[in-house]
């Protein structure tokens, strides 16, 4: 059913884990859907120096996460944002048609993590800053009151 490349990434996924004090975290999907991916990025001088992920999902979802992390690592923000779902599926030697949505999740989670980093980059605390976890407006304090998450550094 799956290509050898998909099975290889499923059996030996690269970059599994979390990054402490990540510059950006992107979460896509939820446990109800059967797939959930969380991507963590470390960004220095506009370059993704580290990418890690945790994934709850099928073989394709795990292989896609692994492939996306490998493709993104060492890339500039601009390059990483250009990684498309089609690129990921292609690099994996194709995915069964009913599993293509998994490749969408992978690239989307990575982009969400980068976007989170970009959104908080100004770090000036001006009005209009929002908690990246629950989207509630964050004012003054760096802790988001509604969800108790760290809103900004």
């Amino acid at each position, binding site marked *: 059913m799956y290509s050898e490349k998909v099975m290889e990434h499923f059996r030996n996924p690269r970059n599994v884990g979390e990054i402490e004090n990540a510059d950006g975290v992107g979460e896509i999907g939820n*446990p*109800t*859907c*059967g797939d959930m991916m969380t991507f963590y990025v470390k960004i220095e001088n506009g370059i993704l120096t580290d990418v890690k992920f945790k*994934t709850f999902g099928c*073989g394709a*979802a795990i292989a896609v996460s692994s492939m996306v992390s490998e493709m993104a690592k060492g890339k500039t923000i601009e390059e990483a944002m250009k990684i498309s779902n089609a690129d990921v599926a292609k690099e994996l030697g194709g995915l069964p048609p009913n599993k293509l949505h998994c490749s969408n999740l992978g690239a989307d989670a990575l982009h969400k993590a980068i976007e989170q980093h970009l959104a908080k980059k100004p770090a000036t605390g001006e009005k209009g800053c929002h908690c990246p976890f629950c989207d509630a407006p964050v004012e003054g304090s760096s802790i988001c009151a509604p969800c108790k998450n760290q809103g900004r550094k």
Partner: protein
Amino acid sequence: MRFGYFDHAAAAPLLPEAKEAMMPFLGDEFGNPVSLHHFGDKPRAAVEGARAQVAALVNSRPDDIVFTASASESNNLAVKGLALSRKAKGRNIVVSAIEHVSVLEKLKSLGVYGFDITEVPVDADGTVHPDKLAAAIKTDTILVSVMHANYEVGTIQKVKELAAVAHRFRIPFHSDGTAAVGRIPVDVVGLDVDAYTFPAMSVYGPKGAAALYLKRGTRLQPLIEGGFQEKNRRAGTEDVAAIAGFGSAAAVTKSRLPEWSESMTRLAQRIFKELPEKLEHIIFTGSMSSRIPGHVSVVVEFVEGEAMLLSLDDEGIAAASGSSCSAKTLKASHVLLAMGLPHTKAQSSLVLTMGKDSTDEDVSHFLDKLPPITRRLRQMSPLYARLQKGEDPYAVKPGEACEDEQEHETDER
């Protein structure tokens, strides 16, 4: 590599006796059972001999057995055939919420004829309660269909009591016995059902043959017309080899069922006892007291079903899952959801169906391999990470609730 085959619900090995019974009809005995000339003699004798053997397995009269090509066909014939023959009396059909898709889906197509469906809920064990069935029956109900046992969760239904409820309202009762036959003794007369489905595969016979028991006098509109085979109930030249194999397999199964059932029950009990000692956060599903032999269904929390199946396959172990990702339809098991299991846990289901040849070594191999596979996948799982941080693993953020139909639409981008 060691192997362990735990997917007898999908396919079961062919009994050598059945294969031997089939061979003449794949060779020189190619004749048509309806032929007047002598080429039809042995094929005809084989079909009628098999009918007697298959009937004996479920305590039916041979004349009450209709041969079809699959359990899905038998279910179609029973549900559509009975409904269409009774449409002048009413248009409502009552089924359990956990029927096989070949019952549930056909019912949808019957909507074209103006039939409507009432689904009877099941309890957390997957049991249909007779009082719930009685409450679901309407004045225009013309058919009740409740399966004998469910392959996903192993629960055996109180078919005799459920049939009695239907009969109290003078309504015929069909039961899909695919998961029950070959695992527990079945007596269609004792159960007092009007129609009963079972395939050759349930008794280690070939694919391509199945039976529908139809109680004498039960009227039914055939689905395939144009020939007088099967007493005008199913037209088309019989698959003589498959039917001969079915007959032989039914006879062997009838004589050996007690010993096979005992072995399968014992092996499943080992898993119920030993797996929780080796693995945390697991939930067995289905009834523990009224259960088919050799069946284990379990939710392994925080890991997705298909990922487990692929990893088990790498260790030579064949199993099944009710997760949406492992289904071609990408929908989580309607059976687990009907039992009240949330989507989040249905995604982590694992189903083992053993057979007569399953061994202690197979079970030990499974018990050795599932825990490390689960640990590896949990290390990757953000749900497990949440648990370890003391958070709710299954929390869904507002606005992110997901209908799996929407989320999993095939995306060709």
